[in-house]
């Protein structure tokens, strides 16, 4: 096999069909970019789950009456609730956070939004028991036992909130993957079409090759490699696009959330880890589409 010959054929092929080639590369790139985005969301959710596991708490919010008058939880019903929580099986620790401490915490979390702080008053923040469980999944026990008890305003499950957040992220992931799939289908058709056009423009060459006894590999390989090269360029473009998206868009809109530790940042390392999959998908899809097209539509 004369590689120099095959590659010179590939380059002429790509150049001759330049508009189709660009369309093919862009479609592939967008498809892979979306796939990469979906994979990054998956990584982010995984990281978050790892981050929050063990840190999740159940907040037992107390009534206004307790919040206003019982700073140290020495009176009833606060003291009674605390000992009841302490005695509940599965509870690891109980911390009382009075209104002032709660307001400080609120200020810390939202220090980046001074407008919000201006509007907030300590009276809106209830005193709270922060309850840590041995098994963060078993929040229902606390909810069932303490919701509606005298002095309790409500039971707030961070896990439930986080679940909703994850649902949102997973929804984003699903949308990205579905769009990636649709784009992949478009890319597939474009690859197939480009190969057919390419084979048509080179029909004289291919005719001569067949006639002088070139093997199937020799006649088909340039077309296949052409598709794979376009696929690889597409995946490189996709990775570049992800890097740019992270640098100029994602980092800006998520800065507050990542700095306060609510969501883990997506690093260049994450993109690096995702990119081999994009290359692999690009190569497999372009090569197999190319092969099937040559088999079905192009008589070589």
């Amino acid at each position: 096999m004369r590689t120099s010959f095959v590659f010179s054929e590939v380059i002429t092929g790509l150049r001759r069909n330049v508009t189709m080639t660009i369309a093919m590369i862009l479609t592939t790139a967008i498809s892979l970019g979306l796939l990469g985005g979906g994979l990054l969301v998956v990584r982010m959710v995984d990281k978050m789950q790892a981050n929050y596991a063990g840190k999740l708490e159940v907040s037992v919010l107390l009534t206004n009456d307790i919040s206003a008058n019982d700073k140290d939880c020495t009176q009833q019903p606060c003291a009674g609730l605390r000992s009841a929580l302490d005695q509940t099986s599965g509870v690891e620790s109980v911390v009382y956070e009075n209104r002032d401490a709660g307001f400080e915490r609120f200020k810390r979390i939202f220090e980046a939004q001074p407008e919000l702080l201006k509007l907030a008053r300590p009276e809106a923040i209830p005193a709270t028991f922060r309850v840590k469980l041995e098994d963060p999944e078993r929040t229902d026990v606390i909810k069932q036992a303490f919701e509606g008890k005298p002095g309790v305003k409500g039971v707030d499950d961070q896990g439930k909130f986080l679940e909703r957040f994850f649902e949102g992220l997973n929804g984003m992931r699903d949308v990205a993957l579905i769009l990636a799939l649709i784009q992949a289908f478009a890319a597939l058709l474009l690859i197939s079409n480009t190969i057919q056009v390419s084979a048509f423009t080179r029909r004289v060459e291919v005719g001569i090759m067949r006639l002088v006894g070139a093997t199937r590999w020799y006649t088909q390989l340039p077309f296949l490699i052409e598709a794979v090269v376009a696929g690889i360029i597409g995946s490189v473009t996709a990775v570049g696009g992800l890097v740019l998206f992270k640098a100029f868009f994602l980092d800006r809109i998520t800065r507050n959330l990542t700095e306060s530790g609510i969501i883990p940042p997506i690093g260049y390392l994450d993109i690096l880890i995702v990119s081999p999959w994009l290359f692999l998908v690009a190569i497999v899809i372009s090569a197999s589409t190319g092969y099937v097209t040559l088999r079905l539509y192009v008589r070589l």
Partner: protein
Amino acid sequence: MIRLEHVSKVYKTSTRPALDDVSVEMEKGEFVFLIGPSGSGKSTFLRLLLREEVPTRGRVYVSNFDVAKMSRRRVPRLRQSIGCVFQDFRLLPTKTVAENVAFALEVIGKPRNTIVKVVPEVLQLVGLDGKEDRFPTELSGGEQQRVAIARAFVNRPLVLIADEPTGNLDPDTSQDIMLLLERINRTGTTVIMATHDHGIVDSMRRRVVELAYGKVVRDDARGVYGVGR
């Protein structure tokens, strides 16, 4: 060398067979004219030798190849032992004379040092030395056909098939091309030439196989194109 045994070929789109029970044998080193009106089966005959088509019935042998029965994988081997020349030359316009000839060797995986050695040799044989770097459009019809013959012959095939090679050329140039084909024939290569050119067939006095409606109607060892034509 070449043997057809009771070969028939029926195309799906036609009710009349393109070839109808044809049996012919051609020896190594023979020069054979294949004549007959359009639609008489000449092209089908040639396409069967190249295994561009498979016969509906009968057997085709070229050299050691059982052409009708061979597997697809072996077809390239068969074609490497057959050279082809056409009326329309079929040169690649983006490649030079030398590159056009080299192309035939490149695509069958011949090493570069062989190519650089044999391409100038064959170009000299066909009388194109000094024009290696010209493009096909810069050449006359006769010269283009010489390039095509060089390409067909560069791999030293056992058989050279020429399908109306002089169809686009004036009589003088045609004569030159025939001299070249004769020269190639003298190297021991079997030449099969389909043609409508009376003058050439009559002056060469070689074997003539005439087809009509898919049947062999004449096979003369030293024939002419036809009486009274």
